[in-house]
């Protein structure tokens, strides 16, 4: 007989196990006195915990936010009246002064923190904007330089192409002249060859002619 583990018993106690697991453990508890006794003790302790209910939260005024502001307002009014009447308002209670000093210090600290956060945000935004403007200007200058460079390169390439074209034209003309010369020479030689053939075929005419 396999006893359920403590972990399985905790699941069972708080009904977090599946129906089949519940059935299995129930069956075991029905037959195993030791496990049943342990389960009963846990159950009883669990029920005892319910003896400490908590009542609805009472509103205990620990530190009302309005109080320090009211004290501060009274202080400001008091100082103002004292100033107008030619003397400052004396605060008799050292405890009140200490509390006031602490509250004012904490509120000043909070206000300074808020201001610091706000300034940091503004600074970050301004920096981002400045960086953006600077980047845009750099890109613009770079684009202009690129365009100038492109035009300069185009001129150089055009000039080079013209030079190549001119040289090509000169070479074509010279080639044409050479071909004309070859044609004339060839024509003359053909004519000579024809005459020689004609003479060879009529030897009498040659001697007659002589």
């Amino acid at each position, binding site marked *: 007989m396999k006893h359920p583990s403590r972990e399985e018993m*905790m699941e069972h106690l708080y009904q977090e196990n599946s129906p089949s697991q519940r059935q299995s453990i129930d069956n075991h508890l*029905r037959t195993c006195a030791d496990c*049943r006794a342990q389960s009963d003790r*846990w159950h*009883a*302790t669990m029920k005892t915990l319910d003896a400490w209910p*908590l009542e609805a*939260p009472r509103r205990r005024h620990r530190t009302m936010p309005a109080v320090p502001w009211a004290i501060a307002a009274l202080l400001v009014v008091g100082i103002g009246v004292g100033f107008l009447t030619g003397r400052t308002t004396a605060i008799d209670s050292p405890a009140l002064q200490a509390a006031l000093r602490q509250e004012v210090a904490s509120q000043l600290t909070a206000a300074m923190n808020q201001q610091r956060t706000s300034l940091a945000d503004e600074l970050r935004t301004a920096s981002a904007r400045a960086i953006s403007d600077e980047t845009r200007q750099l890109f613009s200058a770079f684009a202009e330089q690129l365009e100038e460079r492109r035009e300069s390169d185009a001129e150089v390439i055009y000039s080079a192409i013209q030079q190549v074209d001119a040289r090509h034209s000169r070479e074509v003309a010279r080639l044409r002249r050479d071909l004309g010369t070859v044609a004339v020479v060839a024509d003359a030689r053909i004519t000579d060859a024809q005459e020689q053939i004609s003479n060879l075929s009529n030897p009498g005419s040659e001697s007659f002619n002589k």
Partner: protein
Amino acid sequence: MAAKLFNWPTLFSSPDESAMWRVKHEDDPEAFAELVQRWQKPIQNLCTRMVGDSHRGEDLAQDAFTRLYSKRKSYEAKSKLSTFLWRIALNICYDELRRQRRRHEFSLDEPSADGSPSDQLESEAPGPPDDLIGQERAAAVRDALQKIAEPYRVVLVLRHYEGLKFREIAEVLEIPEGTVKSRMAEGLGQLERILQPFVCEKPPRRVFRNERLIV
């Protein structure tokens, strides 16, 4: 405005997470007030059970919500707000318990007769039971919980009083679920020993399927 109305967390997440999303991204005071209203009681009860003092529990709950607001930017929407908030409240309770121990260590007063740390709680009524016996039992349970080591106490409080599942407790405490269950068993065992005179002697009426068995 459109982004405010149609952002995905407000459309697809639970009220807690969507309110927390508004607190995190828009510093929305109404959303934070909504969270405080919904969670104040459970957090206050947790703190009270952990430190054994309802007034201190109330203060600690306020501290927990203050810390929740200050840590709002570090909240990640993928995790449940409840887990985030339980952890914050528990860390505040641990800090308070450490402070109490330190005060106790450096105190020149004589320790209480039984060595319990809860002598400072004696003047406080533990709960609402009007009858003396009920108040005595409540005080006994409160003091017994304070005598249990924190790892066991926190599991007992979260499971029994706050009603978290073992799986949820494991998530909050970042420990295995099996460890949570074994700590629960150990905590109940320790409580049983401390509360021996108060533990109900009468065994529970156990109802099995298809039969009624009184054990």
